[in-house]
């Protein structure tokens, strides 16, 4: 059996983009022009992760350190039971993202989706707790 390869050379330094930066679009100006209310996405409870957000998270978090690119911060490798069709869908998503230039495995796609859903659940639970406290206060006052 072969032994594990170890990369001993120095890691390459980060690439910095020094070209002109594109002008960013401020949310307040856009909201005013659209007759809309601007809300940070993280404040919108229950919003599902979009393919764009998924791609963006993977672009930010998948890092190459010499070996297979890994998902930053995802250090726990855990067996999670899945339906075969769900795994197939994750593989399709990974292939779709790969065609768009974002290289990620089906497991990494699953990890990002799972994290987002856990954050949503946490914020929804916090909202319910807040509402319960307010109702309890009102009930004790009357």
């Amino acid at each position, binding site marked *: 059996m072969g032994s594990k390869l170890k990369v001993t050379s120095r890691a390459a330094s980060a690439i910095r983009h020094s070209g002109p930066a*594109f002008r*960013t679009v401020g949310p307040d100006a*856009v909201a005013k022009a*659209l*007759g809309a*209310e601007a809300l*940070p*996405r*993280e404040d*919108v409870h229950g919003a599902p992760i979009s393919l764009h957000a998924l791609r963006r998270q993977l672009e930010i978090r998948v890092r190459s350190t010499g070996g297979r690119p890994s998902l930053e911060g995802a250090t726990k490798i855990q067996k999670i039971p899945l339906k075969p069709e769900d795994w197939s869908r994750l593989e399709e998503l990974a292939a779709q993202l790969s065609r768009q230039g974002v290289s990620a495995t089906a497991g990494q796609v699953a990890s990002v989706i799972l994290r987002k859903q856990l954050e949503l659940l946490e914020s929804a639970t916090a909202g319910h707790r807040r509402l319960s406290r307010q109702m309890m206060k009102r009930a004790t006052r009357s």
Partner: protein
Amino acid sequence: MIIYTYIKPERFIAHLPALLEFLHRFGRETDQDVVVAELSGPEGSWFFRIKEYDEGGR
């Protein structure tokens, strides 16, 4: 209905009145409770929520 598109900032800003016209007409004519446009960039993602629609050309 979800449409994704990449934007060029100057052209996007120049076409905001047309986008306003489309989003409000869409909400009005299809009787939506809410119409949302999402804009994502390096600084994060924003939802633009429209609950009240203009009167259009009326």
